[in-house]
C-alpha cells in the first residue's frame, strides 16, 4: 500500500522499480540519440549551403535538387536507414547518420530556397540601387529576411530527425529506439514508455530552444539568443553522457581490455543472449559494446565485415539464408558444412553450439494432446483435416511449412496468420487447434503446451551457435573466453529465461541474471570470475 501518487495515479513500488531499471540505460541511449540527431542536422545544414547556392544560380538544377530531396523523403525512413548498410558496407553510427542527414535535407533546403527566393522585388531593387553586390544582397537582405522561414525549416527537420532516429536501432546505431525496439519485442511497456516519452521531450525541447533563438534573432534580444544557444549547447553536451559513463566505469574498473561488439537480433531470446554475453565479457575483462535489436541479415553482414564481433545465430537460419541451401543433411553434417563455409568464405570462427535449439515446432495444450493421444506429428495427421493451424506472419511462406506438408501429407481445415506474441494465447484458449511455436518460447511451459516430436525431420535443426568475427578472433584471449560457454545452455534453461520476460513481465536484465546463475554455476568453473 506504500506507493507514490503521481497525477492521481498510484505508482506502486513494482512500477517504480521497473521504470528505475529503464533509467539506468538512459545516459547511453539518450546520449547516442542526441549525438546522432544533432550531427545529422549539422550535416543537413552544411549540405544545404552549397545546394542552395547551386539552386539559386540555376533554375533547372533547383527543380532537380528539390525533387531529389522530395524523393528521399518518400522513401520510408526505416528502408532508407536499412539501405545505407549495404551501400556503405558497415553498420552503426555512420549509416544512420547519413540516412538521417539525407532525411533532414528536404525541409531545410526547401525552406531555405523558398525563403531566399521570396524576397520582395522592390527590396531587391532597393538593395541593388544603393550599390550592394550580389553577395551583399544575399547576406544583408535576402538571408536576414528569409531567416524565419529557414529556421522553421530547421525546426521541422529537428522534430523529424529526433523522431526518425528511433528507427536506427535495427541498423545498429544506439538511440532511444533501443528502448522502443527492445520494449516491443520483450513486451516491456516500461521500456517503450521511457523511450517514447524521452524522444518526444527531446524533440519538444529542441523545437522550443530553436524557436527561442529565432525570436531572439528577430527581436534583437541578444540575451534570449544566447540563452537559447546555451540551451542547445547543454542538450548537445548530452552526447557526451555515454563517454562520461564509460570514463567512470573505466576509472572504477581500472585497466580495461579490448573492445568487443556484441550483436543481437530483435526478439526476446536474442535480447537475453546479447545482454548475457555483454555482462559475461565485461566480467572476463573486455570492454563490450552492445548493439541489440538488429535485423537478421544486417547482423550477419556486420559479423562478416567485422563491425560486430560476437553474436548467436541458428544453424538452420545460416543454412537457408546465407548458404541458400534448401536441403537438410542432418544435424552433425549441417553444423560441419556451415562452419567450413563461414570460415572459408568470411573468416568467421564458429565457437560452438550453446546447447539449446530454437526451432519451429507444432504445439498444442498438453491436456488436449493427452486426451487425444497425440505425441508426434505422425499422430496429428488423423486430426488435421478438421483442425485450424495458427502461425506467425512468415511461417506459411517458409520452406519448413512446405516440407512439413510434404513429409506428413498434412491437410488442415484452415490456417490463420497472427502475431507471434498472440498465437500462444490463441491455442491455449482454443481459438486455433495447433500453432507453429518456437521451441524455446517461455510460453510453452507457462501455458502448459506440449511440443510434438518431429520423427521425419521436417524441421531442420536450429541449434544456437556462437560466432566470432575474423577481427574478433584476433583479439587476445577472446576466443578462449567464449569457449567455456559451449554446451552450457539447455532448451529448458532458455525456455525459463524467455518466460521471465514474456510471461512473468520481468526485465531483460533479470532474465540475463538468471542465465548467469544457471549457466555459469557448477561444471567447469569460469576463469577469472569477478574480483571483489
Amino acid at each position, binding site marked *: 500500500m506504500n506507493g507514490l501518487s503521481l497525477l492521481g495515479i498510484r505508482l506502486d513500488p513494482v512500477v517504480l522499480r521497473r521504470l528505475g531499471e529503464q533509467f539506468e540505460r538512459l545516459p547511453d541511449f539518450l546520449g547516442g540519440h542526441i549525438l546522432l540527431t544533432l550531427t545529422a542536422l549539422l550535416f543537413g545544414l552544411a549540405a544545404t549551403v552549397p545546394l542552395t547556392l547551386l539552386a539559386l544560380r540555376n533554375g533547372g538544377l533547383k527543380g532537380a535538387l528539390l525533387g531529389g530531396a522530395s524523393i528521399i523523403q518518400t522513401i520510408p525512413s526505416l528502408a532508407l536507414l536499412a539501405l545505407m548498410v549495404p551501400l556503405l558496407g558497415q553498420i552503426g553510427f555512420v549509416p544512420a547518420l547519413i540516412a538521417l542527414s539525407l532525411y533532414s535535407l528536404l525541409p531545410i533546403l526547401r525552406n531555405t530556397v523558398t525563403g531566399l527566393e521570396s524576397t520582395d522585388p*522592390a*527590396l531587391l531593387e*532597393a538593395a541593388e*540601387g*544603393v*550599390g*550592394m553586390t550580389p553577395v*551583399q544582397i544575399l547576406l544583408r*537582405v535576402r538571408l536576414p*529576411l528569409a531567416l524565419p522561414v529557414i529556421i522553421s525549416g530547421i525546426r521541422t527537420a529537428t522534430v523529424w530527425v529526433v523522431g526518425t532516429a528511433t528507427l536506427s536501432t535495427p541498423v545498429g546505431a544506439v538511440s532511444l529506439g533501443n528502448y522502443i525496439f527492445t520494449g516491443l519485442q520483450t513486451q516491456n511497456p516500461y521500456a517503450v514508455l521511457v523511450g517514447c516519452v524521452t524522444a518526444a521531450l527531446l524533440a519538444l525541447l529542441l523545437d522550443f530552444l530553436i524557436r527561442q533563438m529565432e525570436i531572439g534573432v528577430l527581436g534583437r534580444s541578444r540575451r534570449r539568443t544566447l540563452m537559447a544557444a546555451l540551451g542547445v549547447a547543454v542538450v548537445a553536451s548530452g552526447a557526451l553522457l555515454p563517454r562520461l559513463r564509460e570514463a567512470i566505469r573505466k576509472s572504477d574498473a581500472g585497466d580495461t581490455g579490448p573492445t568487443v561488439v556484441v550483436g543481437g537480433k530483435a526478439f526476446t531470446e536474442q535480447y537475453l543472449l546479447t545482454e548475457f554475453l555483454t555482462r559475461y565479457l565485461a566480467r572476463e575483462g573486455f570492454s563490450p559494446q552492445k548493439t541489440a535489436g538488429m535485423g537478421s541479415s544486417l547482423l550477419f553482414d556486420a559479423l562478416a565485415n567485422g563491425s560486430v564481433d560476437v553474436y548467436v545465430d541458428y544453424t538452420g537460419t545460416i543454412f537457408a539464408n546465407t548458404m541458400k541451401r534448401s536441403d537438410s543433411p542432418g544435424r552433425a553434417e549441417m553444423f560441419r558444412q556451415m562452419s567450413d563455409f563461414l570460415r572459408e568464405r568470411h573468416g568467421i570462427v564458429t565457437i560452438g553450439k550453446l546447447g539449446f535449439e530454437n526451432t519451429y515446432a507444432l504445439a498444442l495444450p498438453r491436456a488436449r494432446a493427452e486426451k487425444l493421444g497425440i505425441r508426434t506429428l505422425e499422430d496429428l495427421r488423423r486430426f488435421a483435416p478438421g483442425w485450424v493451424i495458427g502461425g506467425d506472419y512468415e511461417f506459411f511462406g517458409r520452406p519448413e511449412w512446405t516440407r512439413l506438408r510434404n513429409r506428413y501429407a498434412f491437410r488442415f481445415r484452415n490456417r490463420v496468420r497472427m502475431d507471434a506474441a498472440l498465437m500462444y494465447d490463441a491455442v491455449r484458449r482454443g481459438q486455433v487447434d495447433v500453432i507453429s511455436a518456437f521451441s524455446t518460447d517461455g510460453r510453452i511451459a507457462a501455458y502448459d503446451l506440449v511440443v510434438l516430436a518431429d520423427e521425419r525431420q521436417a524441421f531442420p535443426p536450429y541449434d544456437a551457435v556462437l560466432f566470432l568475427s575474423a577481427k574478433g578472433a584476433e583479439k587476445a584471449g577472446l576466443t578462449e573466453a567464449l569457449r567455456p560457454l559451449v554446451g552450457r545452455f539447455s532448451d529448458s534453461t532458455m525456455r525459463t529465461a524467455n518466460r521471465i520476460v514474456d510471461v512473468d513481465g520481468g526485465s531483460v536484465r533479470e532474465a540475463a541474471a538468471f542465465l548467469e546463475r544457471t549457466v555459469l554455476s557448477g561444471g567447469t568453473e569460469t576463469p577469472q570470475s569477478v574480483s571483489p
Partner: protein
Amino acid sequence: MIRFHDVSKAYSPQRFAVLDLNLEIAHGQTVALVGGSGSGKSTTLKMINRLIEPTSGSIDVNGTNVLRRDPVALRRTIGYVFQGIGLFPHMTVGENVAVIPRLLGWSSARIDARNEELLRLVRLPPEDYLHRFPSELSGGQRQRVGFARALAASPQVLLMDEPFGALDPITRDELQQEFLNLRRTMDLTVVLVTHDMTEALLLADQVAVMHEGRILRMGTPGEMLRSPGHDYVAALLETPRRHLEALRRLTGRESVSHPGAGEKGETANERTVPVGNTA
C-alpha cells in the same frame, strides 16, 4: 551634370521603352520626368545608375560615361529614393540610413554622427527614431528615412522615382515643401519621376514630358504653362489648370498667387463644398 546622348532602350527589337533620347540636366537643377505608365520615364531614370542598361547611346554623369564605371561603385555615389520607399524591414532606421556609408566602410563614429545629422535634417529626432524599425513608422516618416538614406553619402546626384506616390495628400504636401527647403540648402542635381503634373510644376526647375519613349516637350514650369506646344502636354496641364481655376472661383476675393498652393487648396476645397451647399 547629366547628359543623355542618343540613348535607346529596347526590350525587344520592335518594342522600345526609350528611343533616341537626348537630354541635358545642368548641375544643381531639378528635372521632373512626367508621363503616363509606359512613357519610358522610369526606364530613363534607372539607366542613370545602371539598374537598367541602355541598348545604345551614352549617359554621362559629371563628364564620365556611366557605362564605363563599375555599376556597384556608381550606385553608391548616387542617391536613390525608391517608389514604395523600399526601406529594409529587418534594419532599424539608423541601419537603413547607414546602408551606403557602411558599404563604403565608414568608421562607426562617422556613421553615428552622419545618422544624427541626417535624421535632424529630415526632422525625425534621432533619440526617438534611430532604433525604431520601419514597421513602427507612418508612411510619411518612412519616406523621410528614405530621403535620409539617399542623402547619407552626400551624393551629387539624387534620383527620385515617384517618391510621394504612396503618401496621403497632407503628408505629400508637407514632404514636398520640405523637399523644396532641402533643395535650397544642398548642392544637388535631382531627377524626379512622376505622373503628377502638379507635383512636377511645383518641384522642378525643368519639366520634361515623356510619351512613348520620347521627350515631347521640355521647359521651365512657367514656359510649360504659357505654351504647352503639344496636345498631349496641354492635356496633362489641364488638370492643375482646372484646379487653379476652381480655387480662384471658390475663394473669390483671395487670389491664389502660385500653383504651389494647389494641393493645400484642394483640401480646403473639400471642406468648403458642404458649407456652400447648405448656405
